[in-house]
């Protein structure tokens, strides 16, 4: 466990190798192999470290490894007037929460790396190396984020994953929509990061340290801010602003759907499984702070559940397969925040883990579908793919059932835990969450129906091997059978699938086909199906670590994660610390007392109810999209207004355009006017003053100073013109003059005496 610093370092090394050498020298396979090897090694180390941690007693599962002193101690005043020593070590901390996270990141990361080797196989050689460089770099930063033992190391990872997200969304940077999406993601994240940084500043000025454990222990001694909005509440609010940016919550969720412009493995790894959960992880990491700020907790819960509902409703009507999944991700992240907000930190973290499995699975499955369809993302042009993509279908079905919350797949346990906790703490939140759960089941089944069931609606393909022209045409001209070919709702998805630089080569690649015309839907090669199957297994069994007590399980994950969410008693020594432990224990017991006890039967009833809701959602979707597809069209017409609002994502982007963005532009233009007139005026004015005074100064210089100097020169010159004539060079002249001189002096001497 001493070597946990190697876990982030290995992908970093892979990124360095691929980035410095790979882009120029390595083949596609070599750069892929390097990246995969590094991730595999990191996974191995993570497993070893995790296993060793499991061997420790539950209250000692927190290992700090300080790699180096990063920022040496410098005196810096805190808000209570004391001058603290501000120093930050580059430290890693392995505890149950970060242990779970590194397993998720390295495990899913490795599978996605493997998947990418096949998915990206038709990219240009340098592009593949660049892709794997970014992907490895992302893992490096993500592991720093989850392993960092203080806010600053976490912040490095936090910013780093944002950077990699930007780079990978804009991976096809020739495509305008992709580079725009990258910028959107980056800038939106900056707004959140602003909050995060403010939170970190406030933490230092309040506690005088940035170490997670020290902050936790210090915060545990402070009273719960139940009646007022104190400094802890502000810290938590700022941190939550950071989390909304990174984890795509209201109001900063707009970047995540656009982030689907990136390659699908990126969407799976970064925008579903790992990076977007960083906000949830951060909240969990600061659980002690948050549980001392009940107001902020309420805000978190409300924002979370509203995000879940809003994203789910948008997801109901999207036609782009990846956008459905993107809104689903936003929605599921909303679930996690709901869990955090009602104080169920373990449930949120548990859902984080299960979601990582099934959402990565769904994204990779959608990637496989897109791959099979030659780059097509519009679900209306799919359908009936079950027989062409058996493995993808089976694994995606697992993912769908898991996210819908069908027993005994992983999503059931985690989602149910959240719903249960929400029911216990806040009935309104629970109702909204249940509605969202039904919608989740509905839109996921809708996705499956439109993609895999029914008849094939996609473009025709040529069976002959030399029909490149026909295939290229077929790719862009919709099939005559497609009823939506020129439909109205087609617009918003159109640019995604047929972007101006649609050169990313999905058109014609895949197992055994080589470079040639597209031969119709086909199953993906093994490197793509293997991760699907592995993740499907994960999506099935991951929930078993959290089987609730009501079902005869032990909810192992909650017990396992609990030490990460409370102030540690064993690690602290001294009087104040003891007090802190006491206070936290009191707080915990108070919480328990406040918690209404819900009988096991109620919990079981809730489970059955949510299962029922999920099945209802699936059944309705099945009826709408498989049995009677015309019903959905009819509904869309009947509720045209609502449908339009949902299709346009509640006009949030437009609203931001009208307010924040145009406001920013107007402010920028205003400032520019001020700049040009006032600031430039002052600068130019002072410039003119300088020029004029310099002109006068020059005039004085030329006349007075130069005049004097020249005058002296002229005097010397004129004088010497006459005097030099004495210098004849003839000795006798000199001697004569000397004689006269002597004669004169002697005469004076003699006669003037």
């Amino acid at each position, binding site marked *: 466990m001493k070597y946990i610093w190697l876990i982030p370092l290995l992908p970093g090394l892979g990124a360095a190798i691929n980035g410095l050498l790979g882009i120029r020298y390595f083949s596609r396979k070599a750069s892929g192999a390097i990246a995969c090897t590094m991730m595999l090694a990191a996974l191995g180390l993570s497993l070893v470290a995790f296993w060793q941690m499991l061997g420790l007693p539950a209250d000692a599962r927190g290992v700090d490894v300080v790699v180096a002193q990063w920022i040496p101690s410098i005196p810096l005043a805190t808000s209570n007037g004391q001058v603290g020593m501000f120093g930050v070590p580059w430290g890693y901390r392995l505890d149950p929460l970060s242990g779970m996270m590194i397993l998720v990141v390295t495990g899913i990361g490795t599978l996605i790396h493997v998947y990418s080797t096949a998915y990206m196989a038709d990219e240009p050689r340098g592009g593949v190396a660049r892709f794997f460089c970014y992907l490895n770099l992302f893992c490096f930063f993500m592991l720093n984020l989850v392993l960092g033992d203080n806010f600053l190391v976490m912040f490095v990872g936090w910013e780093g994953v944002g950077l990699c997200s930007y780079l990978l969304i804009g991976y096809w940077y020739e495509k305008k929509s992709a580079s725009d999406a990258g910028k959107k993601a980056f800038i939106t994240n900056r707004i959140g990061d602003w909050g995060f940084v403010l939170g970190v500043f406030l933490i230092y000025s309040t506690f005088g340290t940035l170490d997670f454990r020290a902050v936790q222990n210090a915060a545990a001694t402070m009273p719960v801010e139940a009646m007022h909005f104190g400094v802890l509440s502000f810290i938590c609010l700022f941190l939550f602003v950071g989390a909304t940016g990174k984890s795509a919550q209201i109001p900063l969720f707009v970047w995540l759907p656009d982030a689907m412009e990136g390659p699908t493995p990126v969407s799976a790894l970064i925008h579903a499984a790992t990076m977007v959960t960083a906000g949830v992880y951060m909240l969990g990491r600061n659980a002690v702070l948050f549980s001392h700020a009940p107001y902020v907790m309420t805000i978190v819960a409300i924002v979370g559940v509203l995000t879940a509902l809003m994203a789910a409703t948008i997801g109901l009507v999207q036609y782009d397969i990846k956008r459905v999944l993107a809104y689903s991700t936003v929605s599921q992240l909303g679930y996690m925040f709901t869990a955090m907000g009602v104080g169920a930190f373990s449930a949120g973290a548990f859902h984080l883990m299960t979601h990582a499995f099934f959402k990565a699975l769904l994204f990779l499955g959608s990637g496989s579908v897109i791959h099979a369809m030659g780059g097509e993302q519009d679900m209306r042009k799919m359908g009936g793919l079950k027989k062409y993509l058996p493995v993808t279908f089976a694994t995606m079905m697992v993912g769908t059932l898991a996210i819908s919350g069908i027993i005994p797949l992983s999503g059931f346990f985690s989602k149910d835990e959240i719903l249960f906790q929400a029911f216990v703490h806040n009935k309104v939140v629970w109702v909204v969450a249940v509605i969202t759960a039904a919608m989740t089941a509905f839109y996921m089944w809708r996705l499956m129906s439109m993609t895999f069931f029914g008849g094939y609606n996609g473009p025709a393909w040529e069976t002959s091997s030399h029909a490149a022209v026909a295939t290229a045409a077929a790719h862009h001209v919709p099939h005559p059978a497609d009823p939506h070919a020129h439909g109205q709702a087609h617009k918003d998805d159109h640019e995604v699938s047929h972007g101006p630089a649609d050169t990313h080569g999905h058109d014609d690649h895949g197992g055994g086909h080589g470079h040639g015309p597209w031969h119709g839907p086909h199953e993906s090669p093994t490197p793509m199906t293997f991760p699907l199957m592995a993740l499907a297994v994960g999506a099935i069994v991951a929930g078993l670590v959290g089987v609730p007590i009501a079902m005869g399980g032990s909810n192992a994950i909650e017990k396992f994660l609990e030490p990460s969410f409370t102030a540690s008693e064993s690690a602290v020594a001294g009087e104040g610390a003891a007090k802190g432990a006491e206070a936290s224990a009191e707080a915990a017991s108070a919480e328990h007392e406040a918690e209404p006890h819900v009988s096991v039967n109620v919990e079981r009833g809730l489970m059955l109810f949510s299962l029922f809701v999920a099945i209802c959602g699936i059944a309705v979707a099945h009826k709408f999209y498989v049995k009677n597809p015309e019903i959905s069209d009819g509904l869309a017409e009947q509720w045209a207004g609502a449908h339009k609002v949902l299709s346009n994502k509640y006009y949030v982007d437009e609203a931001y355009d009208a307010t924040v963005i145009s406001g920013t532009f107007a402010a920028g233009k205003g400032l520019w006017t001020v700049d040009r007139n006032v600031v430039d005026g002052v600068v130019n004015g002072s410039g003119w003053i300088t020029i004029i005074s310099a002109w006068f100064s020059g005039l004085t210089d030329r006349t007075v100073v130069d005049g004097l100097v020249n005058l002296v020169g002229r005097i010397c010159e004129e004088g010497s013109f006459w005097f030099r004539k004495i210098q004849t*060079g003839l000795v006798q002249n000199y001697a004569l003059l000397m004689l006269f001189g002597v004669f004169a002096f002697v005469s004076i001497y003699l006669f003037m005496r």
Partner: protein
Amino acid sequence: MPITPTHYMLLSAALFIIGVIGVMVRRNIIIIFMSIELILNAVNINLIAFSDQLHNVIGQVFAVFVIAVAAAEAAVGLGIILAFYRNKESVNIDEMNLMRW
């Protein structure tokens, strides 16, 4: 008629004036040197005359110094004249006007 210091001084003055006139008017640098020697010897006569008159030997000592210095000066001067002659094929002092502006 006894020889008095006046006679010595007249002789000395005559020699001195002859020397000065020689230095001033002659063009041959060797003659000028010789005239300088005359001037020096006029001084020597004075020195020795007064030394005898005043019974003080210092005057004679000075005369010896003057002779020694004159000898050294003649040596250096002749060297310069030789070097000059090699360059200019002449010992005419009118042509020695290099040290002018």
